């Protein structure tokens, strides 16, 4: 495992934690504002899931194998 791969692994681990941590918008806790027929917190979640999908795609292209494939 080279140093670069290890660093990449840590970066992606942080991304994974961030993606998990903000899937539920805690900063909107007890907020009930409605926009276009759905609560704002639900719009946030839908957007966040799309962002997660993009992040996973970037991971697949650039870093797939990190932490698993031993060099």
């Amino acid at each position, binding site marked *: 495992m080279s140093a670069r791969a290890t660093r990449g692994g840590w970066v992606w681990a942080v991304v994974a934690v961030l993606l998990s941590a903000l899937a539920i918008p*805690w900063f909107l806790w*007890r*907020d009930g504002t409605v926009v276009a027929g759905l609560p704002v917190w639900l719009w946030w979640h*839908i957007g966040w899931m799309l962002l*997660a999908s993009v992040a996973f795609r970037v991971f697949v292209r650039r870093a797939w194998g990190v932490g698993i494939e031993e060099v």
Partner: protein
Amino acid sequence: MAETTLQLGIVTGYLLVALGVGLLAYRLTDRTAEDYYLASRTFGTVVLLFTTFATLLSAFTFFGGPNLAYSAGPEWILVMGLMDGILFAILWYVLGYKQWLVGRKNGYVTLGEMLGDRFGSTWLRGAVAAISIFWLFPYVMLQQKGAGQAIVGLTDGAVPFWVGAGGITLFMILYVAIAGMRGVAWTDTLQGLFMLGIVWVAIGWVLSAAGGATAATDAVAASNPEFLRLGGGVYSPQWMLSTAISIAFGVTMFPQINQRFFVARSKRVLKRTLSLWPVLVVLLFVPAFMLGTWAAGLGVEVPEGGNVVPAVLEAYTAPWFTAVVVAGAMAAMMSSSDSMLLSGASYLTRDLYRPLTGRADAVDDALGGEATVARIGVVIFASLSFVASLYAPGTLVQIGDTAFSGFAQLALPVLVALYWDGTTKWGISAGIGGSQLFYLLSTFEVLRYLSELLLGRPVVALPADYFGWTPAIAGMLLGLALTLAVSRWTTNSAGEDPSVYAVTGAEAD
């Protein structure tokens, strides 16, 4: 009566189509165990994505989840999104890809084999299989309960509960006995696409009848203003996170999902599926659970013990469409249950029957004695869970949650074993055994009964929660701590071989 006949006709017709697809696949199935259980590891992107997706989705997506949204608000969407769209996707890589490489390298078919081989322990292999089969039971029962309720709701009680539950049981037995993994996966693909399609038609239909999303949400704001405010009631941060984490980890250890980590054709297939998870989850869960939420605002009455989705469809759409959606829900249950029975059968035969009969390394033969044992096992298992579904207390959610959390206890010890060469046989055994024991005692109140029996009063009981976090999470952490600590204190026994988990990935492009 004519309406009921039409509706039952639609449900039956759909089941027969699914059976036809299964039979078609059966004709292409070889007579080897690897092909019967794993379709010879040949799945492409679409089939792998949808078979996993449809297996994940059960009665709960159409019934339990919307019911919860109807009674407590739509925050459940967030729990499911975090659970299946993000945490499961991450585990799909961390656990799934590693397992796929290891399985490919060594030819494993079950989780028990993978662990038994690495730790040189037939006992561990059997224990993992036994634990898995134990937790699988309430979950199969959950699907049967769902089917029984669906048919009762659809026909307004004209068809009794046991007919629906018994019907789906028979269907599953038939299905698993003839079609192996390939048949299961093909029908899953059909059913996954079908479910996604109908849920959007349903939401479109109901909203156009109710005057659009804004009007429907305004009605919720008037009737249940709490529903639109994030959190509150049952939805505490600890509960939401506990549920999402324990179920996401639990799902990876469910035999039918875990086995799917072995079946991809190539690395490219696994890569393509990863980024589709969050999208697929949003596409299905947002409409399904909003339907339940809006039903509360629209003042839809749900009969005692019934489900909100059929009720709202009956109020706003045509009877034939309600039947189509119920067929879809049946599809969701079957696509989970048939996979469960198939995987359960492989655990039973390979990890329990073979070692116990001293044939741990028998030649694979799906038509020999082993297959007969597997099929008998399927029949007994499905029949027992059917009987239990007739008498079991508890709501769908509680039973389902019990199973998920029971499986979740396995996840962290297995993860540690996959990534840390220093894991010892005693470490993983302590981690798995200790967390299972803890969770069993937390769930089934064994201690309270024992203390009543011995002391005459219920003095000993484990807490119901830990600062708001569920016993499932506490058990997972206990399992992790035990695995790490006991591994540090013990040395590798004879027969252990950490090198079986060393993979380069180069051989799998």
